[in-house]
């Protein structure tokens, strides 16, 4: 792999003590495959466009804040990452969901390998199923809100999908005058709400939706790490403790955000009314679990493939490096004063993904491992 040329080295200074106030300022994680860019985050630049927050490659403290052009002078990005950059450059505001869509597009092109391309197509199909399931749940909720429950009457969930749509449209006819919108507009709004809430899940299968499933995996991670002797030994103890704390914090906050979002679905007439007048606010509420879990998918995957890729000690170091910082906004969302362990995270963060002669890990091996993660989670950050 050609090294960056000396004359191209930029005058970048590592920024120390970065403490983002909001999730947007922290940035959204990107499923880069270039080892140097692992853990990088994309955020809006003050002067317009996007900028990247990249770990200090020297292994020292701090981060680089730079444009994609700056990144290219620091390392030699993979074709996959160059393609990603062209796509995210066109984003108006970066967020977990737009990045997911971009990640799927790029994975499907095959630049991270055929396995990642196949997995991306499967992920799209899964997204479509999750959307359909959420749409159906919302239509059922609309029916329940309007139709009186009669003993011996047919519960809406027992009817065919087509009949559900018919009964929901009839229910929306009843609701529409109270909201001041046409029934067709409300039917369309139900579809839009379903798209916003699809990853959150609702109804009897809610916990199998992507975000609740990810919360369960994050919650299980400390146990999986703790089973390994190195994690309890002198060398792994501090990292393990930090990972455990951050897992507990992330899962508690994500569960709370998930409950808050799902609570909105409990009163469909009210939600439809709010959707018509303050859609952006509802969308932001629905996005909160995604922001809180942004980056954790990769963390779980790094650990799950550690045994046959880089080994446990390096994986633990990488997991620690990837632990997302919680901005002050997280406290506002939860209505709690959270100790986000920012100082500890800053201290323990070390660039782990480097070619290492002693462990025999080559640059090409690191890329191959990252591509494997893309095949396991083609949409990238979870």
């Amino acid at each position, binding site marked *: *792999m*050609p090294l960056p040329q000396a004359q191209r080295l930029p005058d970048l200074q590592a920024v120390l003590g970065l403490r983002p106030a909001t999730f947007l300022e922290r940035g959204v994680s990107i499923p880069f495959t270039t080892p140097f860019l692992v853990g990088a985050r994309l955020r809006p630049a003050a002067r317009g466009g996007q900028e990247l927050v990249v770990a200090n490659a020297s292994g020292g403290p701090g981060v680089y804040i730079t444009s994609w052009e700056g990144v290219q002078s620091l390392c*030699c*990005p*993979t*074709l996959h990452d*160059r*393609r990603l950059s*062209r796509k995210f450059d066109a984003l108006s505001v970066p967020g977990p969901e737009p990045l997911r869509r971009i990640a799927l597009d*790029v994975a499907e*092109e*095959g*630049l991270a*390998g*055929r*396995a990642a391309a*196949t997995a991306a197509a499967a992920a799209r199909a899964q997204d479509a199923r999750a959307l359909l399931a959420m749409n159906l749940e919302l239509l059922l909720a609309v029916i329940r809100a309007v139709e009186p429950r009669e003993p011996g009457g047919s519960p809406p969930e027992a009817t065919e999908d087509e009949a559900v749509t018919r009964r929901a449209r009839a229910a929306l006819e009843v609701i529409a005058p109270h909201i001041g919108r046409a029934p067709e507009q409300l039917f369309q709004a139900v579809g839009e709400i379903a798209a916003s809430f699809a990853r959150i899940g609702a109804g009897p299968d809610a916990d199998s939706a992507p975000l609740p499933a990810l919360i369960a995996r994050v919650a299980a991670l400390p146990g999986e790490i703790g089973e390994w*002797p*190195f994690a309890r*030994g*002198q*060398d792994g103890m501090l990292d393990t403790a930090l990972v455990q704390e951050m897992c507990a914090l992330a899962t508690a906050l994500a569960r709370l955000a998930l409950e808050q979002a799902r609570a909105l679905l409990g009163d469909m007439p009210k939600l439809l009314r709010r959707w018509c007048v303050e859609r952006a606010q509802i969308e932001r509420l629905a996005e909160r679990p995604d922001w809180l879990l942004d980056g954790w998918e990769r963390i779980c995957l790094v650990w799950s493939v550690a*045994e*046959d890729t*880089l*080994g*446990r*000690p390096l994986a633990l170091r990488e997991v620690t490096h990837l632990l997302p910082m919680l901005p002050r906004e997280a406290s506002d969302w939860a209505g709690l004063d959270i100790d986000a362990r920012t100082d500890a995270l800053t201290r323990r963060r070390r660039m782990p993904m480097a*070619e290492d*002669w*002693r*462990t*025999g890990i*080559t*640059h*090409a*091996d690191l*890329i*191959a491992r990252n591509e494997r993660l893309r095949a396991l989670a083609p949409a990238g950050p979870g």
Partner: protein
Amino acid sequence: MSGDGGAADPHRLRGEVAAADNARVLRILRVVDALPVRGEADALIAPLRPRLAVLRPPRPPSLTRLLFQPLDPLIVPGPVWRPATPGVPRPLLAPLAAIVVAAMGASGTEAQARLARKATLTPPVALEVGDLMWPHAAAVLRAWHPTPAFAAATRIDAAALPALVGAVAALLDHGATLCRLAQQPDAAADPSLAGMLLTSAARGGAAALQMMLALLLAHTPDAGHALRLAESLAPASLVDGALDFLLRGFAEATGGMSGDAAAMRRAAILLDAMERQGGRRPARAAKLAVVRRRLDGACRARLEAAADGLARLLPDGAGAVDDAEVAGMEAMALEARRLEALGRRGGGVGFDDAPLRRAAEHLAASAALAPVDRLRLTEILLGPDAALALGERAGFAPGG
């Protein structure tokens, strides 16, 4: 084999076997493996062992092979073995296995039966059945005292036998862990594990500690760390003995130096560690230089072979290549890349990426590969900038 129907001259026979091509070697091995009692046949295949380490043919399950699998890197031919080295003489193995099985009674028979149901001795099979055997074997051998008759039968120095058998027992205490180390060498980088194994072996005596150190050094990707650890636990003479043993193994192996990139890298790291540790011994320095030259040569040969192999994986016609075929090509390209990194790191004179370039050019011209596959293979072999240049020359940009 002589094929004249008469009693063959053993010396000539061994020479013929040693000169046999790979296909014939595998046929000979099948015949020897099928013998109920191998006896002198073991000596016949002794010269083949380094080649077998590379060929890795599937071997039928044998209780002796299973029992001593954790010690594999230490096993040496009887005539080569010397007391006070970490080696374990091969003639010792079958008689010790017989003692273990006899002492284990019903549980030994059960393990044998379970092993007989397996087609080959794969690592999972070794762990499954070995877990039943190793703790018992360790206990049996620890309590057993070699007799003069045993020493005579195995032709091993009677004075050295008690320490040797005791050390084998101490290592078999950790049979499962040692087998896992062989399969997943990165686990040896765990300092707590290496420390535990060395400390435990030290309780079994100097011979056990030296053997454990040699095993760790053979498996670990971070030989420097294992050495530092050993130096804090063992006298310098023991550490030197382990290093000399491994170095001799490298020097004597004809095919063993041409394993995969990971195995060659471990050897190179070990050579680095030896160089740092053994500067005080000129004899070792000379041997190190020889082994380094051989490693460099093996690395070049493997890189050439991997590059040529990539070309051979391409189908003749223009038919589409399926996912598995592309995955195979990418894995081989990655291995070639590792070998190139290893060669460059080793400082081989004139080591360049010509074989990688040759392979990339061949693949780029193939109509059987989709444009994106050609880009990826070029990227793996030569990096993203070269892949981008290829895309521009061929008129396909990433992502269209």
